[in-house]
């Protein structure tokens, strides 16, 4: 009986882990996507554009722990690379290139979100 209780607790734990993981990763990708979205909008001054990227990097660093715990790590290397490139472009006052990379990141995050969403396609 003791073992059965442990087994049921283990089952509940794994399901809870899955549910938590699902919602936490969804929230994290959404938050990062919104931040990248903001980077695509051109501000009045270059300083504000740079600030936007810095803020995005902060949001990314805050959420990446959760994402790395629950999702395959290689999926995020492209985003990290793009974020670094974006900073360089922005310091070069090249908003267009930076905005394009930001758009790429949003696309990647959406793709990751879709891939890990609970659906018939992802299960099978």
């Amino acid at each position, binding site marked *: 009986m003791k073992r059965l209780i442990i087994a049921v607790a283990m089952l509940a734990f794994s*399901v809870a882990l899955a549910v938590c993981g699902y919602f936490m990763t969804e929230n994290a990708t959404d938050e990062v996507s919104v931040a990248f979205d903001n980077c695509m909008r051109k501000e009045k001054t270059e300083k504000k554009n740079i600030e936007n990227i810095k803020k995005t990097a902060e949001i990314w660093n805050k959420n990446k722990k959760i994402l790395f715990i629950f999702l395959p790590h290689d999926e995020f290397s492209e985003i990290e690379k793009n974020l670094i490139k974006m900073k360089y472009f922005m310091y070069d006052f090249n908003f267009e290139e930076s905005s394009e990379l930001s758009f790429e990141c949003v696309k990647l995050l959406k793709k990751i979100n879709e891939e890990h969403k609970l659906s018939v396609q992802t299960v099978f």
Partner: protein
Amino acid sequence: MSVVLIRTFIIYFLVVLAVRLMGKRQIGQLQPTELVVTIILSEIAAIPLEDSGKPLLHSVAAVILLASLEIISSYIALKSGKFRRAVEGNAVYIIKEGKLDIKAVKDIRFTIDDIMEALRQKDVFDISDVEYAIVETNGNLSVMLKSDKIPVSLSTFGKKSSEKGIPAVVVSDGKYIYSNFYLCRTSKSEIDKILSRENLTAENVMLMTLDKKKNKVVIPKGE
């Protein structure tokens, strides 16, 4: 994450079903559910070790789920005969009252060579000596010999033997094995006395065994 768990659920039941369909020949020593868990566990456990890009939590959750499924299914099997038969199958009588049941043998896809091999492993070399032979759910063969072929023992003649207990290793490579002293109800001083009668000390002994009746075997070092 939830995708991993659902996949684990599906694979677990799918492999159990596959193993049940494969029959007893492929099972060997394990029950079907145990075999399934063993196969999947070993694979799942290896994934995060092979690919560091994969989150550890995926495998951890899957292993937890598998272990809990195994315990829960064994508990249900304990309570429900129907479930037990569905998951583990039934023992099959291949020899009944001395007669080979060809249909049962065909059903479990055993060949005559398989049966003879399994009987030989049970020290039975003549199939006509067997009264009953049963293929158990884990694939092992249980054999009951005909009454006139059962080896004689003291009880056959209505005699009882005095219990001498298991010969316990009390000295190994010159060292006392204190944990075995209770098996032969002895003490260090008693062992020293026995050894001194043979002009030996424990340090000079490679192996010494002793039983409850104080029957001993002493092998000195360098012998």
